[in-house]
């Protein structure tokens, strides 16, 4: 267990815990306006201060964690659920038209950064958290497809796969029985990295108004609200930013630590 792994696990679980607790308890009602107490700096009453409507920042950060985690988690889930089977199929049928179609499709999706997908969806259906999930999720599909295919291809060359084929096992069965368990570590690590990228992407989308809509608090929109007040109330911008950094840093450290712990040889794509 490396320092990375422990620090990463601690930071990530801290944020996860905050998100979970927010379902049952927050110091204040995150939506309650309290104009007289507006723009307070962090103090004993309001640990993270209050915003321009006098809402408690600590409560908003807790509920915002919920939004971020939910969006990123579902997006990674979409990416894995569709990307991994596509990657396994492409590898099992290497060189066939199916492989070609899957890989060309991947390349095509890579040409649409998630922000662009979000813009398209919003232009058609209007803004909302679901758009953010779909946009980030779609972008995650080729990431997982590509990394699964790459790892699976080298496994297909290995002799234990040939031995399984000699034992009469078909491609689907070999993929499930031999390939998937041997790429699982890689997928866990990549999943952690994509999770952290998802948090960043969600923040960016809600900052420009393409993510979760009011009154649902989200870290990105808290930053957008803070922008005009940054000169006289810098804590409004500092605190949500630090929340994002702590979460992403924690997840990245967790990913790196997991990789070293599970298998130091696996490589993770990071872009």
């Amino acid at each position, binding site marked *: 267990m490396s320092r990375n792994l422990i620090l990463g696990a601690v930071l990530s679980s801290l944020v996860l815990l905050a998100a979970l607790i927010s379902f049952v308890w927050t110091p204040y009602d995150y939506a309650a306006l309290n104009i007289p107490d507006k723009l307070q700096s962090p103090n004993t009453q309001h640990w993270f201060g209050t915003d321009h409507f006098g809402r408690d920042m600590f409560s908003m950060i807790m509920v915002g964690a919920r939004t971020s985690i939910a969006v990123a988690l579902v997006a990674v889930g979409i990416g894995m659920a569709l990307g991994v089977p596509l990657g396994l199929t492409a590898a099992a049928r290497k060189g066939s038209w199916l492989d070609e179609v899957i890989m060309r499709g991947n390349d095509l999706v890579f040409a649409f950064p998630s922000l662009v997908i979000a813009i398209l969806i919003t232009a058609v259906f209007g803004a909302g958290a679901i758009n953010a999930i779909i946009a980030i999720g779609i972008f995650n599909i080729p990431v997982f497809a590509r990394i699964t295919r790459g790892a699976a291809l080298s496994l297909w060359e290995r*002799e*234990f796969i040939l*031995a399984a*084929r*000699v*034992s*009469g096992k078909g491609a689907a069965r070999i993929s499930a029985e031999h390939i998937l*368990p041997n790429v699982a570590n890689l997928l866990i690590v990549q999943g952690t990295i994509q999770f952290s990228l998802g948090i960043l992407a969600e923040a960016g989308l809600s900052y420009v108004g393409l993510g979760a809509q009011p009154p649902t608090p989200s870290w990105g929109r808290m930053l957008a609200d803070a922008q005009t007040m940054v000169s006289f109330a810098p804590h409004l911008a500092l605190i949500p930013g630090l929340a994002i950094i702590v979460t992403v840093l924690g997840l990245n450290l967790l990913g790196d630590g997991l990789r070293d712990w599970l298998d130091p040889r696996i490589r993770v794509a990071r872009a």
Partner: protein
Amino acid sequence: MNLLQIDDLSLSIHGSDILKQISLSIEPGEIVAVTGESGSGKSMTALAVMQLLPHGAVAEGTIRLEGQDLLNRPEDEMCALRGASIGMVFQEPMTALNPVKTVGDQVMETILVHKAMPRAQARERAQEVLRRVGLPADRFPLSRFPHELSGGQRQRVVIAMAIALRPKLLIADEPTTALDVTTQAQILDLLKGLVREFGMGLLMITHDLAVVADMADQIVVMRHGEVVESGATNHLLRNMQHPYTRMLFEASGHQVTLPASVKPHPLLEVTNVVRDYRQPRKRLFEAPGHYRAVNNVSFTLNRGERLGLVGESGCGKSTLTRAILGLEDVQGGDIRLDGQPVFSGHSPDLAVRRKMQVVFQDPYGSFNPRHRVARLITEPFHLLETPPTGSGRQDRIAEMLSAVGLSPDDAGKYIHEFSGGQRQRIAIARALIIRPELILFDEAVSALDVSVRAQILDLLAELCAAYDLTYLFISHDLSVVRTITDRVMVMQAGQIVEQGATEQVFSEPRHPYTRTLIEAAPTLPDIGENVA
């Protein structure tokens, strides 16, 4: 004064002892071979002379080049020596060259980095040494990239780099291990010629006793980081003192006695098989070319027969193996096992497949690292209509593990707990567990140390007696095929050029290629009764 003098060299890496009190010496114009199995520390000895040891290595003792100590030389002085006074050739020619630089640049770099001569002259020298190693500039211009050369040609480039400045000492670490036997013979001749011509000392590291037997002036035998025996080659081979040396010698030429095979009845029939691979188009609107890996191959393997297939890399023997296993379709001809075709499209014909199993070369890649031995060796049960369950399954596992010389308790272990030789035993158990009619051994002992290889060959001979095995033994190693088969086929460029009874083919080869192969294969001298 000796050219190279190593005295009491000890080496530890991160606290674990790699070398213990090694001593050896080389005179100018002399070839000294250091030999031993994996883990003997022979390569580390070479790297210690170059002072290119891995991080965390601590060396004691002395290494002297012409009386000058190397062990405590500052790094910049070592840089000046490397390439100029000591040249080195490595094992893997495929990866030893920088893929993005031309061979000319890489040979010239040796000269230029030592500022030995101006650029134009360095270019001439590079051309000259490349010609000397057999790559004349009119056929192999300096502008070639490594990927445009074969393995043997690349090794020649590596040698050219090493000798460009006429070093006094050349170190060759397994220089021919990755090469085919005919290429190996050429490279060994080249090295011998260079030593004679330039009066260099050659420190040759090899695991193959046969390679050094007819080349080295001195032999140093190492085991577990210690020199167990050393001396002049002829004297040492005739008066082996240490039991390990004797064992190594015996194992290198290990012979087994196969039980008589039963009377002929065709099991595997291969008729006029052709296997083509599509090649990428050379021009945009040209029809894609084809590469014929297997060309009109026919043979019959009888029940109870032990058939060998020998050939060098790229001759098509692996392709043929895959076709026989029914993993790939063929473009012409017919492969039948017990009368049934082996290939049946995407859905394998279990009835045919269950008559055939395979043992591969790589003891490390042959098993799913996430499964236990019991699950690994029972994988072929998938082929059976009614696979044994419960205690029947347990009994079969225990029986097979015992048959290959392991313990039934090993069933619960993971593969990483076993050595290379043990893994090959497990691979044999997996192949044997459904009692197939035919087993393919695809270079099954090629990755093993000679002593382990001898044990596996003994095991095969035992299993032949116990289970009436029929097998096809595919290998590039002539000495192994000679002892483990009844009949042999020689393959070259996709075709079988000669086949016949093993002993007859080896003693009276008819095809010129077979003769070339047999002559190129290094052999141990016949020293008669001295070896058990």
